[in-house]
């Protein structure tokens, strides 16, 4: 151990020096530039979504700068972001957060991709009293720690599939049936985030008095659902809920078709990142999917315009349609810009208080944080695949199409 002591001392000294050097509360605002920091997964298993996150941040920064930047205390500032690659590993994410704060003197952090990484970084930003506005950590565990500097613009995990169960209950009532007669099968991956989704689903099943007939926890190295689907075929549930990141929808549709397992409603998460329409074409029809955001929604703001404007600008810039991960990431930057302007100061405590008081409309939806830092103003939306397109079917306020329920059996398609 003694072997490492000189090194440890040196690191500590360097950290202290850099803290002193970057000094006071107005650190990392040099000249007319405010620098935000982010550790994002550019390599490793989250690299696709990590890129979506970065592209979202970058587009928002670019647009804000083009429009003259952020006015703080009568002076205009440009935004910039310092990025690091967290390699999709939580330990690395935490290290990089320390580095952003201690070495680079960053005082405002943007979140990484995924709940796992956010969970690793939040204790660090909290320790240094640095605000983090995150857009990709939805796990409800994040908001039970009493964090004061964590703000999330997205809907949290337990709300993911709420609308699907509400919709099924509505449909049952409309058909003159009691929602209590509905049977639900649940197949959700056995990782932190997905199990948070499951906890929400179980609560909603209880709330509607539905019957839970299958409750499988899919292993993370998930490569086959045959056993679960055999159960589903035998028990004939009205709703099958699958959530296992991008693997879930791909595997569920592939195997349900192969095994010809039919359910009136297949409700899933992560359909857009799994690209089910491109992959399965007609076989993806009738699938119902939860999403944080959709370009067809009528939200708007005066920086990025409407949801559709954002989608178009994004396509022009990056040559692919923005998944919701990109949209929510862009929204996180808007939240910072708004908070800086309202705080009129760069003191982290003041910026934090301004963030906590956020109440704004964005192209991504309304944003208002509760005491735990989660956004309570924006609902999840529910799509259904209809004629090869995602159509919003719930909540009814935003719906652009009527849900097709029950979905026909495979044999009748």
């Amino acid at each position, binding site marked *: 151990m003694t072997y490492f002591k000189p090194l440890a001392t040196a690191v500590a000294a360097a950290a202290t020096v850099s803290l002193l050097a970057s000094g006071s509360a107005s650190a990392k605002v040099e000249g007319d530039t405010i620098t935000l920091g982010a550790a994002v997964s550019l*390599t*490793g*298993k*989250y*690299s*696709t979504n990590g890129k979506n996150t970065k592209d979202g941040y970058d587009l928002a920064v670019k647009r804000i700068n083009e429009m003259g930047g952020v006015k703080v205390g009568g002076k205009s500032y440009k935004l910039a972001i310092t990025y690091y690659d967290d390699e999709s590993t939580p330990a690395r994410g935490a290290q990089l957060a320390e580095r952003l704060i201690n070495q680079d003197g960053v005082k405002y952090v943007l979140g990484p991709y995924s709940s796992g990484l956010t969970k690793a970084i939040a204790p660090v930003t909290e320790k240094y009293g640095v605000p983090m506005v995150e857009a990709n950590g939805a796990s409800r565990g994040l908001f039970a720690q009493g964090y004061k500097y964590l703000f999330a613009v997205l809907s949290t995990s337990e709300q993911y599939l709420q609308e699907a169960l509400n919709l099924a209950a509505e449909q049952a009532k409309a058909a003159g049936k009691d929602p209590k007669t509905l049977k639900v099968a649940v*197949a959700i991956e*056995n990782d932190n985030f997905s199990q948070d989704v499951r906890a929400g689903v179980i609560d909603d099943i209880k709330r509607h008095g539905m019957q839970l007939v299958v*409750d*499988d*926890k*899919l*292993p993370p*190295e998930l*490569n*086959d*659902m*045959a*056993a*679960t689907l*055999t*159960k589903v*075929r*035998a*028990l004939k549930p009205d709703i099958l809920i699958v959530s296992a990141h*991008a*693997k879930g929808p*791909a*595997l569920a549709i*592939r*195997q349900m*078709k*192969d*095994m*010809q397992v039919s359910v009136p409603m297949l409700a899933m998460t992560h359909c857009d*990142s*799994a*690209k089910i329409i491109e*992959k*399965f074409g007609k076989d993806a029809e009738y699938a119902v999917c939860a999403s944080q955001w959709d370009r067809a929604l009528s939200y708007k703001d005066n920086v990025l315009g409407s949801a559709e404007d954002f989608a178009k600008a994004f396509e022009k810039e990056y040559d692919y349609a923005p998944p919701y991960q990109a949209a929510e990431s862009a929204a996180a930057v808007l939240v910072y810009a708004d908070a800086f302007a309202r705080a009129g100061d760069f003191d982290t405590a003041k910026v934090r208080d301004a963030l906590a008081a956020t109440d704004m409309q964005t192209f991504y939806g309304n944003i208002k944080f509760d005491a735990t830092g989660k956004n309570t103003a924006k609902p999840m939306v529910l799509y259904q695949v209809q004629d090869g397109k995602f159509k919003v079917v719930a909540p009814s306020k935003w719906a652009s199409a009527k849900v097709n329920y029950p979905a026909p059996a495979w044999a009748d398609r």
Partner: protein
Amino acid sequence: MSSLDLLFQAPILSVQLLIDGILIGAVFALAAYGMALVWGVMNIINIAQGEFVMLGGYVALYAAQAGLHPFLGIPVAAAVMFVLGWALYRAVIFRVVDKDLFISLLATFGLSILLQQLANEVFSADVRTLSSGLGTIFLFDGMVTVSEIKLVAFVATLALGVCLLLFLKKSRMGQAIRATAQDARAARILGIDADRVYATTFALNAAICGAAGALVVMTWIIHPYLGLAYTVRSFMIVVVAGLGNLGAVVAAGLGLGAAENFAGFLLGAEYQAAFVFSLLVVILVYRNIRLGRQRKYLK
């Protein structure tokens, strides 16, 4: 145990589970062949086995996207992986082949990480799948379904097994491989080019995995990180079946698939893997006890 009740009320379900399990096991058996071959001949436990399967899947996927019939992807994947296996032998494996088992474990472990990350870089982390265009067979009034692609995988496993067996028994190279497996030094003295034998064996293993990967992408899904599941299962199959007995490898593979599927049904998907590994421990303990008895007897 409501799942158990269900099985008693509808015994037909066990037919479904058995069929699915056996057909799943066929793909595991395929990857396990290759592992047994490399292990037996070169004394290397190839941790990158699953990565070969994954790469085979991507080759088949891109072959199909280039306009080939999905089934042609199987031989194409095997051929491409054969070449890659050969190249990897020449670049890395030949340096560790006569060394301690730990060195080759580390080398192939490193290889597996490298291939994973390269695949992630080249193919992205997206989940991919390929439609075989095949349908479904209905049995017992539609109570039992068998997807045709799984059946193809099963037949392909058996056919490949037979081909491999014939190759090892009849061809000169096959005989050289068997001779090297029995006694590398004696084989060398008799004029067998051990280096070539090793290269062929390793490339052959990669080709078999490639074919398995082509079947995986048509039956399930692939992504850069799926390797481990196949490595671990082939390892287990080989441990149970022993080296140098292809028939036992196939039987163990099919058995493993069926056991896993039943465990998934009865205990829930979360215990599927746990059950299989508990089974491995039980088998190893049992085998150890039996070996101990034999040793006593010999004394």
